[in-house]
């Protein structure tokens, strides 16, 4: 019995130890914030426990910023940021530069002929395509493949990667603490002198990514069509991976224009966390990153989604497991009710004590899993709060809808219990502490908070906001948001096995 008590005791003691010093006051002492003259925001957090550091470069541009007819470009540029610079990844940049310009001229001629609405000359098109491919072959002779990543890895780099979503793009990796100046050199060069070499080869990688994650994946297909149905005006209706025809059309010149507009110091936050001293690191950061020319922040306007006034439905018939998904429009992360949505997501989804698990999985035994969450497809702009369930064999998506709506009605009409409210608040604190557990997680969270609120302290204030939530807040926000006319439904119905008909062609 004593031994059984020890596990929760040790968890509490560990959390208590971690929690000590995980508040704003303790971070104030360790964090240095500076906006460089060129507009770049730098956040440095001293955490000397081990001689390593992690960083996140946050670029305030995601697929929402993709230009018209060029969906997928933000994500494409993320891939290109690993291709090197005018000094890294090339055998002879002067010659390569000329060769790359020829690739662009040849591609523009090819695309112009390919996209003619009338009078396309097929013979000429073949010649233009061959000329473009020949130009690519010529440019490739100067490439040293993967040199940027190899330099990082050779110097002890870990987890070198990047991510793009609807709202932003992030670049990150970790290095030993004595590689700070090397990091500052590599990261600043990457965003000062990027060279979009091997662009069309990498475009194929992205096209394959789309085929794998969306075209060949029933859940991917549903999600894409569901989001497209829910957002008709706002830029969220465009997939981050991009539409296939756009992927097959945009050029390295288009990607360079995107880079020139959005990868500017005033649109970026660089966060470094680890065994660093701000007094020593800041001059290094200024020396390297301060070289990037300043520009005015890009236009931040987006199209406002008009209110939805009736339910929308997307139904796919697929030879796959069925799925039920529904989403309700909600305001963006700056809304005063933002923390209440987080509390609702926790109440219905976190663990085996959550309401959806207990109702659909444990008691009714109709679903293998069910949960709800905010942030679909992003959260910088008004977005969706979604609920979903995977039906067990013999059960239909409509049963999921009924069971989920019964749980939503309870949240709208009845106060949650004291225990549930206490659990939500405890878990919010535990989740924050867990997120700060390593340098990389902390760098990411500080960077996003700084970029979104212009104040990294907001990372900690979210817990305070959850702490102030009342039962009435939860009822009020649920009653306002979870109404049928604000709902978009996405369903995968299991289709019978195919007959002898030819298969549906992908893109």
């Amino acid at each position: 019995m004593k031994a059984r008590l020890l596990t929760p005791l040790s968890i509490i003691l560990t959390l208590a130890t971690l929690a000590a010093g995980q508040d704003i006051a303790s971070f104030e002492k360790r964090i240095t914030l500076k906006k460089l003259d060129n507009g770049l925001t730098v956040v440095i957090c001293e955490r000397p426990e081990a001689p390593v550091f992690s960083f996140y470069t946050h670029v305030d541009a995601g697929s929402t910023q993709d230009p018209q007819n060029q969906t997928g470009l933000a994500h494409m540029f993320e891939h290109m940021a690993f291709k090197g610079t005018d000094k890294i990844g090339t055998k002879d940049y002067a010659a390569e530069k000329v060769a790359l310009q020829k690739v662009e001229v040849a591609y523009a001629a090819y695309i112009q002929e390919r996209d003619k609405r009338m009078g396309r000359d097929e013979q000429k098109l073949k010649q233009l395509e061959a000329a473009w491919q020949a130009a690519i072959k010529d440019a490739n002779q100067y490439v040293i493949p993967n040199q940027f990543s190899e330099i990082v890895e050779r110097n002890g780099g870990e987890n070198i990667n990047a991510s793009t979503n609807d709202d932003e793009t992030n670049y990150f990796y970790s290095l030993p603490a004595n590689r700070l100046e090397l990091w500052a050199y590599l990261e600043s060069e990457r965003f000062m002198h990027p060279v979009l070499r091997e662009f069309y080869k990498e475009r194929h990688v992205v096209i394959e990514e789309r085929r794998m994650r969306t075209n060949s994946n029933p859940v991917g297909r549903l999600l894409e069509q569901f989001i497209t149905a829910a957002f008709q005006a706002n830029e969220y209706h465009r997939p981050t991976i991009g539409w296939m025809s756009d992927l097959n059309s945009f050029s390295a010149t288009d990607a360079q224009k995107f880079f020139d507009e959005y990868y500017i110091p005033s649109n970026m936050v660089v966060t470094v966390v680890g065994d660093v001293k701000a007094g020593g690191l800041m001059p290094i950061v200024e020396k390297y990153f301060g070289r990037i020319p300043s520009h005015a922040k890009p236009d931040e306007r987006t199209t406002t989604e008009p209110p939805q006034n009736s339910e929308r439905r997307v139904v796919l018939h697929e030879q796959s497991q069925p799925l039920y998904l529904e989403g309700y429009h909600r305001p963006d992360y700056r809304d005063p009710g933002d923390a209440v949505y987080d509390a609702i997501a926790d109440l219905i989804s976190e663990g085996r004590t959550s309401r959806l698990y207990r109702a659909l999985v444990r008691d009714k035994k109709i679903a293998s899993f069910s949960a709800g969450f905010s942030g679909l497809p992003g959260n910088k702009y008004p977005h969706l709060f979604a609920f979903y369930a995977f039906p067990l064999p013999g059960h239909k998506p409509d049963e999921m809808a009924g069971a989920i709506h019964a749980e939503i009605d309870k949240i709208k009409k009845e106060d949650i219990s004291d225990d549930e409210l206490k659990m939500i608040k405890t878990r919010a604190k535990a989740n924050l502490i867990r997120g700060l557990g390593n340098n990389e997680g902390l760098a990411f969270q500080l960077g996003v908070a700084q970029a979104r609120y212009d104040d990294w302290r907001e990372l900690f204030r979210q817990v305070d906001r959850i702490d102030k939530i009342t039962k009435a807040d939860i009822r009020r926000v649920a009653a306002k948001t979870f109404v049928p006319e604000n709902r978009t439904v996405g369903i995968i119905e299991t289709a019978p096995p195919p007959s002898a008909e030819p298969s549906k062609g992908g893109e």
Partner: protein
Amino acid sequence: MKRPRLTLIAFFIAVSGCLAPQPIAAQARDWTQVPIPPLSAFHPQEPKLIEPPTGMIIPLP
């Protein structure tokens, strides 16, 4: 008259050289030129050990 002046100038040049803020080393033009200092010694923090009567040992960082 000339000598003391030259000495004075030389003195001021020398002093100003010492008192001027140390310039930050020039930016490396190539990644191979970036200086990499030795990694400082790593002394991990000793965990606090809690030993309940059951004999279990709980290390707390």
